[in-house]
C-alpha cells in the first residue's frame, strides 16, 4: 500500500498527488513513469512521474480525471492508500550534451514536461518552455515553469491568458527567427506532438516526443503499448514501456498511434458514465 501524503487540485479536472513510494523515488528520473491501481479491483494505469523527492521518499503524480479509473483515483484523499504503485518504468529522457532546449507542453502533458524542463535547468541548459492550455481556467504549474525556464511562453486556445493560439505558432516564430535549439521536446496530446514535429521538420532540429499509449504490465510483457517507427520507409515495432516512452518524433507513426489510442474509447466512456452515476448516488466509497 502506498500512502498519499499530499493532494492538491490544480484545476477543475487536474489533480496532483504526492505518494510515499521510497524505492521508486530512489530511482526515478525525468521522463519515466509508474503504473498504479487505485483499488484492489482497479485497472492498471500508467502515469508519467511529475516529480520526486528522495529524502521524503515520495513521487508526485499529476492526472486528469478523464475516465472511470482516474475518477476512482480521485476518490482517494490525503492519508488514504493507493493499492499498487510500481516503477520507475521506461527509460529516462535523454539530456546529455544538450545546451539549449525547447520544451513544449500541452494541457496535462505540462505536468510531465515540467520535471524535464527542471532537469535541463538544473544541468545548466538554456530552457525555453512553450506551454499551451485550452483556456485560463485550465492553466497549471505556471510558477514552476517560470522557475525552470529562461523563457516561458504561455498560450491558450481562446486567448483568455497569455497569447492566443496553439503552441506551434510561437515555436515556428522562434525557429524562423533563427533560434537554434539542440533539441525540441514535445509532451502532450498526440495531435499536438504530431504538429510540433511537422513545425520543426524544416529546421532540421531533433525532436523528442513522449508517448503515452495504453499499457497493462508496463514491463515488456503484454505488447499492448507497441507503436511503429518508420525509418527509411521501413516500419519497426517498438514497445513504449521498455524502449520509450521517449522516441524520435520524426520516426513515430502518429496516425497509427492516434487510432490505437481510441481502441477502448467506447468501453471507457461507458465505464466513466457508470462510475459517475455510482458516485452521484453515493453508492460507492
Amino acid at each position, binding site marked *: 500500500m502506498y500512502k498519499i501524503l499530499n493532494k492538491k487540485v490544480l484545476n477543475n479536472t487536474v489533480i496532483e498527488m504526492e505518494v510515499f513510494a521510497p524505492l521508486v523515488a530512489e530511482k526515478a528520473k525525468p521522463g519515466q513513469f509508474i503504473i498504479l491501481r487505485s483499488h484492489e479491483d482497479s*485497472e492498471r494505469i500508467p502515469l508519467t512521474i511529475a516529480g520526486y523527492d528522495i529524502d521524503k521518499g515520495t513521487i508526485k503524480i499529476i492526472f486528469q480525471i478523464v475516465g472511470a479509473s482516474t475518477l476512482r483515483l480521485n476518490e482517494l484523499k490525503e492519508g488514504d492508500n493507493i493499492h499498487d504503485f510500481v516503477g520507475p518504468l521506461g527509460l529516462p529522457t535523454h539530456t546529455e550534451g544538450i545546451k539549449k532546449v525547447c520544451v513544449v507542453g500541452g494541457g496535462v502533458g505540462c505536468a510531465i514536461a515540467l520535471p524535464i524542463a527542471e532537469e535541463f535547468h538544473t544541468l545548466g541548459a538554456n530552457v525555453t518552455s512553450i506551454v499551451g492550455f485550452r483556456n485560463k481556467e485550465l492553466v497549471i504549474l505556471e510558477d514552476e515553469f517560470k522557475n525552470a525556464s529562461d523563457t516561458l511562453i504561455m498560450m491558450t486556445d481562446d486567448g483568455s491568458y497569455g497569447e492566443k493560439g496553439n503552441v506551434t505558432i510561437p515555436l515556428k516564430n522562434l525557429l524562423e527567427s533563427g533560434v537554434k535549439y539542440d533539441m525540441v521536446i514535445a509532451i502532450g496530446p498526440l495531435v499536438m506532438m504530431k504538429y510540433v514535429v511537422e513545425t520543426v521538420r524544416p529546421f532540421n532540429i531533433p525532436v523528442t516526443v513522449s508517448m503515452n499509449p495504453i499499457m497493462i504490465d508496463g514491463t515488456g510483457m503484454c505488447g499492448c503499448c*507497441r507503436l511503429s517507427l518508420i525509418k527509411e520507409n521501413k516500419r519497426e515495432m517498438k514497445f513504449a514501456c521498455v524502449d520509450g516512452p521517449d522516441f524520435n518524433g520524426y520516426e513515430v507513426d502518429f496516425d497509427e498511434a492516434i487510432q490505437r489510442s481510441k481502441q*477502448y474509447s467506447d468501453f471507457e466512456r461507458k465505464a466513466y458514465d457508470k462510475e459517475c452515476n455510482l458516485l452521484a448516488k453515493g453508492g460507492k466509497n
Partner: protein
Amino acid sequence: MALIPKKHEMPIQGPLERTTNFCEVALGYTKEIAVAEAERCLNCKNRPCIEGCPVHIAIPDFIQEVKKGNFNEAYAIISKSSSLPAVCGRVCPQEKQCEAMCTLHTKLKVDGVGIGRIERFVADYHNENSTNSIVPPKSNSHKVAIIGSGPSGLTCAGDLQKQGFSVTIFEALHTPGGVLVYGIPEFRLPKSIVKKEIDNLKALGVEIKTNVVIGKTLTIDELFNMGYEAIYIASGAGLPKFMDIPGEGLKGVFSANEFLTRINLMKAYEDNSYTPIIKSKKVAVVGGGNVAMDAARSAKRLGSDVTIIYRRTFDELPARHEEIEHALEEGIKFNFLTNPIEIIGDENGNCIGIKCVKMELGSPDESGRKRPVVIENSEFTIDTDAVIMSLGTSPNPLIKNTTEGLSTTKWGGIMIDEDTGLSSRENVYAGGDAVTGAATVILAMGAGKKASQAISKKLLNKE
C-alpha cells in the same frame, strides 16, 4: 486382473455449457476413479515414469499409496519433489513426459497410467481435507532472493525455504504467480488453486514482495548489497513476438499475452471489471501452442467465432493433447497449413481481415519438424475483426540491460551452466523462460529445482 487399455476418463463440463463460462473444464477424478486408475499401475521394477518427470517425482510410490487409499501419504511423496502438485496435475504435458514413458504405453501399447490425473486428485484431496498446519523450518540464516513468482521461482523458493534458507521473492506485477495467473486461464487452472499453493509457500516462511521490478526498482547488485547471498532469476517470458507483416498496429490486433493478461490477471471477462476487453464477432488466433489454445478458448467464452491459423498440420500442433481436444469440442475451427502475410484494416484502422497463403510441408528443419513451404499463388483472405498473435516471446531485457557481467545469447536468453543454472555472474542463477524462451510450466519448475540444489550446495559449503 484384466488389463484396462484406456485411462479412466475425467468428468468434464460439457462443451455447450462450458463455452458460456470461465469455470474449470476438467472436474477431476473422484476417489473411486483415482483408486481404479492407480490400480492400472504395474509397479514395474525399472520405474521409467520418474525419468520422464522434469522434477523426478517418485511416481510409482505415490501411486501405490493411492491404491491403498492413503491420499495424504501420496501427497507427502509428491510434495518432496514438487512445490506445486495441484498445478502440475492440471497443466503438465504428461502424455509427452511421465505417461509417455509408462511401461503400459511403451511395452503393452495401451494408454499409460493417468499419472497427471491421479496427481491432480491427490493434490486437490489434500488441499480440501488437510488439517496439518505448515511449520516453518528452522532457519539456517542464509538469505536468497528470487526474481519472479512464476512456476520456476516458486519451485526454487519452496525447495530452499524447506531447507531453512530465508527466501524473498520479488514480483513485478501486483499479484504473485507469474504465468499461472496472467497466462493460463481460469477454466484450465483456477486462480484459487494457485493462491492456495502460494499461501502454502508463505506459511513456510517465503516472503513475497509485489510491485518490485528488478532491473528498474532495484538491481541485481543492489540485492547483493541488501545481504542476499544468492539470486535466482526466473523473470519469465518477455516481449511478445509478432510476424513483422503489415497491419500489426491495427485496432483489433493483440498479442496473446495482452489478450490473456486482460482476461486472467485483470478479470476483464467479468461484467463489473474495470479493465476493458474487446468482444469481437470473429477472432483469428495465429499459432498452435498451449497459449494459442488458451487465447482461442478464452475468445470463444467471450462469444466469438474463433479460427486457429497454424502453418503446419494437426500432427505438429505443439499444444497439450487435452487442450486441442477441448478446443475442437468447443467448436474452434482450425486452418492448418496456413500462414498470414497481411492484416487488413478499414479506414478507421480497425482489423477486418487477415490475408494468408497456403503452405505444404517440406523437408525437416533443425528442430526435426517438417518445414512449411509457401504454395505459390495460394493467397486468400479470412474475414475477421480481431487477430491474436500467439507466436511465443523473447526474454525480458530489463535485467540483462542493468546487470553488468551477465552474459546472454544473441536472442536475449540468459546463458547458464546446464547442470547448475549458474549464470556468468557469481552467485547469480537463472532458469525458466528467462533462459529458454517460452516453454512449459514443468520445465521451468525443473530449472527452479536444479538451481535450488546448486544454491543450497554453494551456500552451505561456504560455512
